[in-house]
């Protein structure tokens, strides 16, 4: 089993994800520079948060053209597990691996704080360790987390149980239907705005995010 953390110029949560996989859940992990296109040796790819290409033009819009992205698409098509966190989620949207788009937060400000999430679907490789309906505390930190999709798309997401996390009680950014995280139809690509890697160690105030990584390990061990 091997995790790969993709590093785009401007990624800034790559080391945080690496730390959790390496030191907390203690699994093999390597950084993958965005110009690398050989992904055969990996079982799960993490597209970390941050500001790939400075968020210039539009968040995620430049990173999707990085050489690695066509390899990531092939990897996902072959059924490999891909998780995009925050900017990683935005890149997955831009690359078309997940449906919908991100708008700016409704208050037009960057927001960094703990939020409560409701786990809506535990029948995925990323959430099997949670209980359905469980309320968890995981921080957000973004400028563009206001998820949007057209009516037909939303219907589709609901029909296929693709909505994985919803903001609970307070919707911080205006996301449609309180959506905080979704999977693709096949269920092997997850995008989420909250940062599970920031809530995987008790020293930081919450371990609720660790279950995402542990769920992945469970699946890969099967």
């Amino acid at each position, binding site marked *: 089993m091997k995790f790969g953390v993709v590093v785009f*110029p401007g990624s800034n*949560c790559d080391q945080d994800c690496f730390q959790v996989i390496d030191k907390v859940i203690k699994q093999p992990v390597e950084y993958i520079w965005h110009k690398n296109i050989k992904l055969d040796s990996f079982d799960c790819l993490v597209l970390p948060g941050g*500001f790939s290409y*400075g968020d210039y033009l539009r968040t995620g819009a430049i990173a999707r053209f990085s050489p690695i992205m066509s390899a990531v698409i092939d990897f996902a098509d072959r059924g490999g597990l891909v998780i995009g966190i925050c900017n990683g989620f935005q890149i997955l949207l831009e690359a078309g691996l997940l449906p919908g788009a991100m708008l700016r937060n409704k208050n037009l*400000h*960057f927001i960094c704080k703990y939020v409560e999430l409701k786990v809506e679907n535990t029948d995925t490789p990323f959430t099997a360790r949670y209980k359905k309906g469980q309320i968890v505390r995981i921080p957000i*930190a973004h400028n563009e987390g206001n998820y949007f999709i057209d009516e037909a798309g939303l219907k589709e997401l609901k029909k296929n149980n693709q909505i994985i996390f919803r903001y609970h009680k307070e919707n911080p950014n205006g996301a449609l239907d309180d959506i905080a995280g979704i999977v693709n139809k096949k269920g092997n690509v997850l995008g989420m705005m909250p940062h599970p890697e920031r809530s995987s160690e008790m020293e930081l105030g919450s371990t609720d995010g660790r279950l995402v990584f542990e769920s992945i390990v469970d699946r890969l061990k099967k």
Partner: protein
Amino acid sequence: MIKPEIYQALGLKDEEYQRIEQILGREPTHTELAMFSVEWSEHCGYPSSKKYLKLFPQKGKYETLVGEDSGGIIVDDLAIVFKMESHNHPSQVEPKQGAATGVGGIIRDIFTAGARPIASLDSLRFGPLTEPYNRYLLSGVVDGIAFYGNCLGVPTVGGEIYFEEAYSGNCLVNAMSIGICKKAELARAKAVGVGNSIMYVGSSTGRDGIGGCSVLASAEFCEGEEKRPTVQIGDPFTEKCLIEATLEALATGHILGIKDMGAAGLTCSTSEMAAAGGVGMEVDISLVPRREEGMEPWEVMMSESQERMLACIKAGHEEEINNIFEKWDLHGVVIGKVTDTGIVRISDKGKVVAEIPAQSLTEPVILDLPFERPEYLDEINRLDLSKIPQPQDYNEVLLKLLASPNIASKARVYEQYDHMVQTNTCVLPGSDAAVLRIKGKKWAIAAVTDCNGRYCFLDPNLGARIAVAEAARNLVCSGADPAAVTDCLNFGNPNKPDRYYYFKNCVEGIIESCRFFGTAVVSGNVSFYNENPKGAIYPTPTIGMIGILSDLSHRTTQYFKNEGDAILLLGETKEELGGSEYLKVIHGQVKGLPPSLILGTEKRLHDLLLTAIRSGIINSAHDCSEGGLAVALAESCISEKPLGAEISDLSLNLRPDILLFAESQSRIVVSVPPGQVIKIEEMAQKDKVPCRVIGKVGGGRFKILKLIDLSLDKMIQSFKGALG
């Protein structure tokens, strides 16, 4: 013949010009004149302040390192490098870019020392929010800090914001950054070894920010002047790449010295690196990557384009280093080499445009400026308490104080900063100090900034001593041992003796406090000319302080934790209202003397609390500062899970408003489990620290004697709604 108008326009005085002619033995070229003007400016050369800065203690209870551009302390095998710097005038002119490039500049000073930046703090001062321009400044500055810091992935974990009339027309933006690296991997800002290469790395050079430091930072604002072209534009994405590339390149061991091109760009980096290494340098600026056509040599030398650095590379390894910068899509171009002449020789396509002894550039005339105590202080320092009417409704007074922007919750601001990235922030913003873990270590770092400018205005020496004491107290409340200091000294025009009086006395106050606490001053920055047409700002010597927690598990927050815990006041409330937030907000007066401070008393309090925290009996600790005891208690109630408090015993023979709102120093509110009261009382008695059980946590409301009885919701509304 150089006309006086030319050198005067560059900010040089007649006597400085004469000295330049003496050094060179001839008339300077335009490029040389420009180089002297920036190097000898207040921003780079500190001519007006050097005399006093030399007196700061550079040694303390922790092993210190004082480098060329930053300083720090050594804790086991790690160096903690930190520094604070001002970007006041640029922010007043263009708040977003001014603040953004302030953050970018200070962070470059950290990673050019070889340290990975792990946190930033920002100490901000504005005029009252009732004026629209001040609201524009606040939102622009916060936006700029967020824009730059968030993108870099360096968490902004703390700081402070104050609002006073004195800062209208001249806001203060002081940015502090902290980095860590292995002690053995520290980099120096020196050029060494004749024949080694001088490499330009980072972004390209344009006309932005030309003369920024000599023009903007070294003169007062006059009404109606257009200064926008002298503000630099920040590119945080390039800086993020520059951090990664620089740290990667330093790890090769082939970079012998490296320096940020911040203020005064190439001029500063070439001459200071040569002077620090005791060598000369030959540079061909036609090789400098440009982003604009037709730049004159002096423009290239003066440009303050951001995200650039100068490095000294071991000969033969240029390509290896260049490859690393190219990987990150950055320039890495050899533009010159180290010589043994002691002279910085700048040529442009073979034509020499400047030839200056490096040492002379870094040795401005050190001025001995006159100072005089302002006469108005006699009147302002007089405060007759009998003329201050006592309020009828203390509930209302407390709510007003909680809603005063100086006291109110700053969550609306710090939630715009990514304060968690790098996953080290173990105490989030909002408490007395931020606490950062060091991965792989048991110990941790706490950091804080502090300065009450109003106190410094009323009594600069006492105000500065308090700034240091309070910073230390905040660290102690979070469980840390105060370790070392960086400072950012913001004052008015040093050529006015009353302003210089404030500078001199504040510096002496800092020295006294720092010597007492054993906290060395390892780095810092001076910003003069902070004036507007109405006068000078409050003297504001911002203190940035680092503390060390011997064990991360000692981290303590200000928030009450459990119903039923006993609340104790450590320290003593005195009959003091001078300079208080209460006196200003409720009575509209800025008068009297700041609260008294006895350093020995303060130190005993620190020792007691640290011992108690380490023995595991303290559930919360919060320092009493602006707004006094009542505000400190209220703030301890307002956490993510708010808890009430009932204060039943203050039994002091003082006026109720003094009891509640005096800002007497050396006081800390703590809560402990009921069973531990005896233990802390014994410890306090032994350490000779006044200690009294004043009430208990819980009850769902906030009550103090028969004076205050408020619902938590109402307090939270006032506290959290004010900066909305």
